[in-house]
């Protein structure tokens, strides 16, 4: 069974969702929670069985799908994808468990389970077409969640979300087909397997074009400036659960795909585009931070801050060295936990007051002390305070990029201070001062159902902030092998010098490990 754990992780929620149609309406919540708990337990089992010293793919599965055209169902997991899969299972679990009363709760839960299938599928797929299938399929449940349960502009927001991402992905599809064609020309066999593609060394001009094609798909998903305009709408209109999953998992697909596809397939192009992308990332960090400061709506503040942090992830990824990429992957998980938690927290207050405008609040700290405490912790984590989860990721990302450019890293560092300003300002507006609005005086504090979601997130935030090693180590091992692959494949002088050669270092660290034993 452990050999097929990835297939089980992907299709168990989908099968459960199909059976979910038969369940009576009042019992569906318990059913959904049970399924999600089992799924989460399976993902923990995956972690337990995962060999964190191995850098390569594990639990590989291989089934021929369309052999005539080189499409195969290939799955596998390494240190990079492992924790994102666990995160996806975790967020679906707490999302369903803490789901507030919604209309059509049955449809919602079935949709969430389908969404979970696509999320795990994206991170486990090792065939470009299978990856693309799950990547595109993930749009449909999200479209429905935003469009059916969202705010007044929900239809506009959901269609914009869908079309934006769909258009980007189709450009990526052309890139995928070109990549497969180049592989066909080089070897005489059609193959869409990513691991096969890793072995292919392309001329630099081809790399540049393909990099751009893939970039459209990924950048819209992340979303990178200037393609980010769909996100504030989607977040603004989506129900709480939609925002949580969107921010915590779906956005990570873009950054994950950069690491899985763009960097190892096109190392020279990655170096070529390093500074342009870094500049976009820094614009994204600073600009969205300033926009966040100007927002009246607390959910928009969180949404823009989420975009801002995605900028740091991109920056770390395009540091192209082990520190930067490891940091960016860790930050993906951290950002998932923290922004997911912040959206949940916004949802808590929205359920009570049915408004998200910050001027409607004030002095909540005295009314809802527990809520204010958890919000405070998450806020500190979001601005990257040491000993919280975000700090580790941001620090490593910036450290990685510092080796490439001092000035740009300094700019990004300043932006993080801006991040502290707007977050603290928002906190002040909501929680401090006198209670001025009468309705706020008797708001109930967080209840049990909400605590189920919030307490584990708080624990993770602090635990991984203090002791990140269990997560960092497997990530680090896989990243080292990818960076080495990039170094070996790169052809230009600049790329060779920008991407570190780890061949000696890995041997040394292994030797020292053995000595230590």
């Amino acid at each position, binding site marked *: 069974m452990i050999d097929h754990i990835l297939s089980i992780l992907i299709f168990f929620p989908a099968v459960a969702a199909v059976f979910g149609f038969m369940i009576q309406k009042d019992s569906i919540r318990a059913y959904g929670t049970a399924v999600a708990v089992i799924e989460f337990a399976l993902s923990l089992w995956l972690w337990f069985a995962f060999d964190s010293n191995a850098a390569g793919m594990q639990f590989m599965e291989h089934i021929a799908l*369309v*052999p005539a055209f080189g499409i195969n169902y290939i799955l596998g997991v390494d240190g990079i994808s492992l924790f994102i899969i666990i995160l996806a299972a975790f967020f679906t679990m707490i999302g369903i468990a803490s789901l507030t009363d919604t209309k059509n709760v049955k449809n919602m839960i079935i949709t969430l389970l389908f969404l979970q299938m696509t999320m795990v599928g994206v991170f486990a797929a090792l065939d470009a077409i299978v990856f693309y299938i799950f990547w595109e*399929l993930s749009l449909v449940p999200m479209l429905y969640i935003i469009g059916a349960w969202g705010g007044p502009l929900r239809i506009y927001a*959901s*269609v914009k979300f869908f*079309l934006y991402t769909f258009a980007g992905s*189709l450009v990526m599809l052309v890139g995928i087909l*070109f990549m497969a*064609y180049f592989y066909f020309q080089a070897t005489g066999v059609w193959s869409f397997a990513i691991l096969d593609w890793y072995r292919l060394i392309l001329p630099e001009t081809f790399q540049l074009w393909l990099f751009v094609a893939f970039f459209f798909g990924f950048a819209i998903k992340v979303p990178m400036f200037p393609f980010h305009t769909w996100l504030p709408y989607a977040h603004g209109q989506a129900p709480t659960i939609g925002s949580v999953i969107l921010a915590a998992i779906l956005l990570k697909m873009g950054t994950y795909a950069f690491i899985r596809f763009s960097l190892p397939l096109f190392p020279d192009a990655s170096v070529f585009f390093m500074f342009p992308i870094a500049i976009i990332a820094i614009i994204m960090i600073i600009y969205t931070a300033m926009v966040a400061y100007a927002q009246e709506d607390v959910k928009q503040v969180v949404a823009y801050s989420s975009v801002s942090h995605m900028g740091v992830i991109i920056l770390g990824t395009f540091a192209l060295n082990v520190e930067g990429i490891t940091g960016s992957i860790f930050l993906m998980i951290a950002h998932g936990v923290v922004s997911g938690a912040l959206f949940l927290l916004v949802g808590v207050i929205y359920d009570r007051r049915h408004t998200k405008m910050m001027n409607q609040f004030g002095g909540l700290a005295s009314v809802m002390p527990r809520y204010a405490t958890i919000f405070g912790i998450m806020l500190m984590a979001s601005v990257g305070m040491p000993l919280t989860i975000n700090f580790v990721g941001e620090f490593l990302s910036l450290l990685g990029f510092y080796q490439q450019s001092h000035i740009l890293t300094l700019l990004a560092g300043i932006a993080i201070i801006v991040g502290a300003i707007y977050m603290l300002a928002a906190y002040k507006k909501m929680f401090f001062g006198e209670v001025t609005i009468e309705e706020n005086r008797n708001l109930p504090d967080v209840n049990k159902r909400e605590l189920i979601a919030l307490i584990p997130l708080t624990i993770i935030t602090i635990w991984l902030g203090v002791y990140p090693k269990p997560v960092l180590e497997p990530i680090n091992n896989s990243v080292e092998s990818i960076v080495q692959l990039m170094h070996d494949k790169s052809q230009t002088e600049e790329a060779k010098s920008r991407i570190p050669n780890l061949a000696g270092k890995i041997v040394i660290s292994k030797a020292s490990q053995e000595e230590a034993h």
Partner: protein
Amino acid sequence: MLAPVNVSLESLNLMTLAPMLIPIVGALLILVIDIIKGGLDKTMYVVLSMLFLLMDFGALVDSAAAFSADGTVMGVFDVMLIDGLAILSQFIIVGASLLFIPLALTHKRFHEYSYPEFFALFLFMISGFQFMVATDNLILIFVGLETASLALYTLIAMHNRDKAFEAAVKYFTMGALAAGFYSFGAMVFYALTGSIEINQIATVLAANNYADIGYVLVGVVFMLASFGFKLSIVPFHTWAPDVYEGSSAAMAGYMSIVPKIAAFVVAMRLFEFLIHSGVIWLEVVLYIFVVITMTAANIWALVQTDVKRMLAYSSISHAGFVMAAILIGTTQSNSALFLYWILFSFTNLGSFSMLWMSRQKHLPAHQDSDHSYDKFAGMIKTAPVAASIMGLFMLSLAGLPPFALFWGKLYMISSAVTGGYTVLALIMALNSAIAGYYYLKLIVYMFMKEPVIGNDGHVYVANATLALKSIIGFAAVGTIFAFVALNPILEFVTAFVYNSGY
């Protein structure tokens, strides 16, 4: 004195005619039965037609086996040409007809099915299309085309509504014009080469090295216009939306599939050798036509208020998409054409059948056309299964993986990539994104809006019978699980196309 002609029956290879003769026999039998005993129920004719189509299918399987064993077979004074293209397209024609004919078994009574002539004409039409694809003789193509078209005009008119008459007359007028163009084009080619067989024309033209390129272009212009009408290529598409709207939804779905595959095969036979022998002008014109057809039809589809008209424009856009295969002209692209059309016939027939199932006899006050978007508002609340299936077909048409049409699009765009048409590949991809919007519009109505007051969901299944439901279920299963059957289909299609020399 004419010398007596001595031909052995053996060399005529009359068996090549079998697949076409079976529906003709069936049609005649239906007419005879009606003469002997009139007033029989439509169910009898439906089942009888299905039996003949099944027999036809069996005969095709037989010729497919013969083709894989011995390659291309010629027959009847070398007029019949049974190659891979002919067999593949006949499979699509007969298969789609098999899916179409049970749609006559509606819950409500419709005018056309009470006439046995409907079924006889239907079978005549099928044999017409079969003749059209199984020859490279320009005259037999013309005969097949006209047999089929005349039958089709009548079938449309038999729907017996004002709009249906309008549609039939419109289609007839345009079809007559196209036939005129076709015969003129054929005449030019005959004048140039002294032959009416496409492969002979190709040989003669190549032998004198395209010396009369000006006349060739004149012939090509007429042929292009003629097939432009048949394939509803922009700017010859103007009839399509009105005709689709006027005919019954089932017939519209049928028209978007079967006549087009027949025309595609002929276009493939005629245009590809011209493109390959360096008629640059044709390549440029086809390129422009393909791009305009895809893009313009997509943009028109965006602004439609009626689902059936939207689907009509979407079919035009799909035809443009597939026309790209003829422009690219590699084995991969030609296989992609057949693959695409097989998958498209499932999906498109399914979505038109969903409209057919919700056909009302009288329009309620809030609706200004048979299938306006409003009618489908909030369908998920009142008829969840039907809404999900309709949503599925829409997602498949939009090219969302892993549903059927995605694989067609994938292979088609890939053939553009390998054929060296990079810009075209990008245009095709982006057009799929534009198309996403109007398919999504229906999904938005079905899943995200509130139902119109007084709509209890019965309207969506008003016409449902077991036969209709099975057809739709069949199409839905085919759409979802296309990836399972993809590899054998792809290998089969590629082998047949490759062995026919395309």
